[in-house]
């Protein structure tokens, strides 16, 4: 759990104004702190790191970021769904599991 200024301090090329703009655009979604300001969990900080990479390292245009994030979020959702699927298959009796895996390999 970190406050906004602590998160900003992690990155030499990020200031509070830019990070606040990201929050406003919902690229990063920390929790509202009980007083005021924001509380960042570790996934929020990883998200900040990612957006920073996209903007500052890869120089991706500001208006392209929502597209990138939306597609990424869909990929991650799909991967979670697939993982759930894999776990469900894992839990099946061996013959069903083998049949599913064999069918997948044939594909």
């Amino acid at each position: 759990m970190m406050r906004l200024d602590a998160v900003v301090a992690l990155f030499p090329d990020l200031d509070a104004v830019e990070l606040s703009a990201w929050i406003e655009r919902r690229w990063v979604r920390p929790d509202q702190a009980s007083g005021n300001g924001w509380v960042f969990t570790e996934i929020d900080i990883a998200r900040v790191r990612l957006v920073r990479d996209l903007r500052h390292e890869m120089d991706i245009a500001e208006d392209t970021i929502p597209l990138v994030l939306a597609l990424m979020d869909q990929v991650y959702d799909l991967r979670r769904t697939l993982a759930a699927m894999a776990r469900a298959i894992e839990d099946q009796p061996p013959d069903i599991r083998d049949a599913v895996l064999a069918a997948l390999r044939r594909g």
Partner: protein
Amino acid sequence: MKDPYETLGVDRTASEAAIRSAYRKLAKRHHPDLNPGKPEAADAFKDIANAYALLSDADKRARFDRGEIDASGAEVAPERPFYRDFNDAARHARYGAGPEFDPDDLESLFGHAFRDQFSRGSAMRGADAHYTLTVDFLDAANGAVRRLTLPDGRTLDVTIPAGHRDGQVLRLKGQGMPGIGGGPPGDALIAVAVRPHKLFRRDGNDIVLELPVTLQEAVLGAKVEVPTIKGPVSLRIPAKSTTGKRLMLRGRGIVGGHQYVDLKVMTPTQDEPELAAFLEGWKPRHRFNPRGGLP
């Protein structure tokens, strides 16, 4: 440790701008968060970041070119967590693109894949056969048995369950193509379309009917006969009803749903001199402006 110029794919005389551009191109391709399914992306990205850290620093680059430091001596990219490491349901929920776990989505993704798998190659099970059937609105609402004649002359009795929805697919186990090598037959999949009804409209399990009533029935109240999907019933229209008033026939919809009756007042279109004379002399007791809400 690989040569940083080689890692970025630039030659030793490359300008700062060329190095930056090569780095950006590679970073886009290898960023671990953009490659959640490729564990090796983390190493590739680290090499790229290290190479860029060295070559983007003019001082370090010059020392490397003179052989004073080697590529590993400049390894600065620290171990860092990536966004993709947090892709478990609990933590990721806030960045999800849609509902957390959508079984329908899963089914549409896998339904086809799985069906096709079973009907391909040396699969023992017969292929599924696809048919379409159109039934009347009331058959779909109340349930019915309909006979389907197949291209090969066989007939299938298809039981339409009460409340069947337009386009819903029924699966008849074992009624598809015969199995191969002693395997079981496939299923018959029947997409059942529903013809619209000229009176009834469906809203979930509720039925909506627009009922024309006369001026007298609307003003004075009346008992009228109303069609429902199971035959006519009698309905009391309260006095002082108007167009758009909705009455409910409890339990007269589809499997436990209701029927809603929307009243529509029909005024006479023939000559009615008495009515006209009355209206000319009529002063309403209550101010009433039906267009009051219009701009």
